[in-house]
């Protein structure tokens, strides 16, 4: 009889220990149960939608047109250097507007390298991003012929290169100014979107 009781006590002890351990494991799990415990809000738009806009407009040239539409001091038809409160005129701006809708605000920033540093040029700027902002980016290769006009009847490859005044007018640096250097710059276009 006493032996049976001892076994029961031992079993009780083991089960009690299991309860304590399970309780600790549950408590540890509970600390990571919700990804929004930091107070993050739901994303205003799916980042893959912005990715799609960037990818498709990069492929058909609309994005390149938008980021090279520079008149020497700012983007064409912009209020200042960049667009505020609206998207660029043209297919890229239209695609972005249709994807994001009126309840979402976005910044579009172009990162480009100069000879010694990485610089930032704003295409669209609507202030600091709010809570739950999502971002997407793509890379666009710019050739001299994308940035500068080759003239009415180019007859040789060098006619497609930028001249020195044309280079100084554009916001990004020409990374290859050699006599046969057709690469202008490789820029990163980033869209950050958040709920207004």
């Amino acid at each position, binding site marked *: 009889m006493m032996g049976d009781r001892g076994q029961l006590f031992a079993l009780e002890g083991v089960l009690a220990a*299991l*309860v304590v351990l399970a309780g600790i494991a549950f408590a540890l799990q509970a600390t990571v149960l919700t990804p929004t415990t930091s107070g993050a809000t739901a994303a205003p738009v799916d*980042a893959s939608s912005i990715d799609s806009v960037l990818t498709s407009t*990069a492929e058909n040239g609309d994005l390149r047109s938008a980021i090279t539409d520079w008149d020497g001091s700012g983007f064409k038809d912009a209020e200042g250097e960049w667009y505020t409160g609206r998207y660029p005129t043209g297919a890229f701006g239209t695609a972005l507007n249709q994807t994001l809708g009126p309840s979402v605000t976005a910044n579009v920033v172009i990162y480009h*390298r100069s000879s010694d540093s990485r610089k930032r040029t704003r295409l669209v700027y609507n202030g600091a991003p709010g809570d739950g902002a999502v971002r997407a980016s*793509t890379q666009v290769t710019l050739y001299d012929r994308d940035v500068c006009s080759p003239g009415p009847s180019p007859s040789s*490859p060098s006619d*497609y290169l930028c001249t020195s005044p044309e280079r100084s007018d554009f916001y990004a640096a020409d990374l290859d100014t050699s006599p046969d250097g057709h690469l202008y710059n*490789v820029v990163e276009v980033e869209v950050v979107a958040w709920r207004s």
Partner: protein
Amino acid sequence: MAVVGLAGRERAQLLLAGAFVLAVALIGLTIVLTSSSYTTTLANQENGVVRGSDAVTVRKSLDHELTRQFEFVFRNYSAGNRRTPFETVVAQTGNETTTHYARRGRLVNVTMDASGAGFIEGARIKQSEDLNLDSPSNVPNWVVAEDVEVRNATLIIGDISDAIPTSSPSTATRMFFETPGAGGDWSLAFMEQSKDIDGDGSLETVWNISSISPSGKLRSCVREEVNSNYEAKLDLDAGTLNGDRCGALLALSPEGNRYDVRIVRGARTTAARYWLIVDKQPGSLGTLFAGPFTDAEPVLYGARVRYRYHSATVTYETNVDIAPQELS
């Protein structure tokens, strides 16, 4: 009494042990359920970088941008001077891409074989003067190119001989795209026929171009008679006849497969010019082009670059063939 009391305590202890077991089971079940829901949350938070779609997107972007440069180089540089301007851009783009993505914890690069082996050399076979579709030595059944991938096959036909009836494929000029060592041949037939186009009972001479599929299906386009006032330009790659879509040509897709290109009864198509770009160098085409008007010159057919993408979760390396659909 003591015996009864002892049995009661043992029963109570058993009940307590049972309660503990139940408690552990419930807590365990709860942990499993919450883990499952957390896993779902994590899965939904995966982005393109984690899933690997980013690697494909970047590759497509680089492919597109380098293709633009390849086309530019092809169109604006002479045959012997096309490598350097393209190689330079590949190296620069690779460096810039690496720098951009390194900031985001990804290693992305695109490189080209330094030995020049990345370039795919080809030949442009052409007849640049208005002549029959004969071989240079007037052979009625001759092979233009053997075992080649064809790009940009274009024919400009100025006349069809009136001396011999050419109203059926069996008597007309035929251009065959034959799969070496197997069946499945495509062919084109250039014919002149009399048809009542306007429905007024009067017959008019029209030009009929037909394609015959490996299964024998015949597709045709009918156009105005070709003669000294009206020539027809056939673009086999675009599937157009004088810029308009032609069902007979749209069905044909010479690109992407290897063919022997053979012309039969070429003498019945006169005042013709043609050019086609193939993926073999002129030296490998044999002596077919020894004639005075048909020749083959070296061209840059395409380029192969090495693409590498490494992130914390994805490693992707592949060759990207830079080869535009249509170059002339």
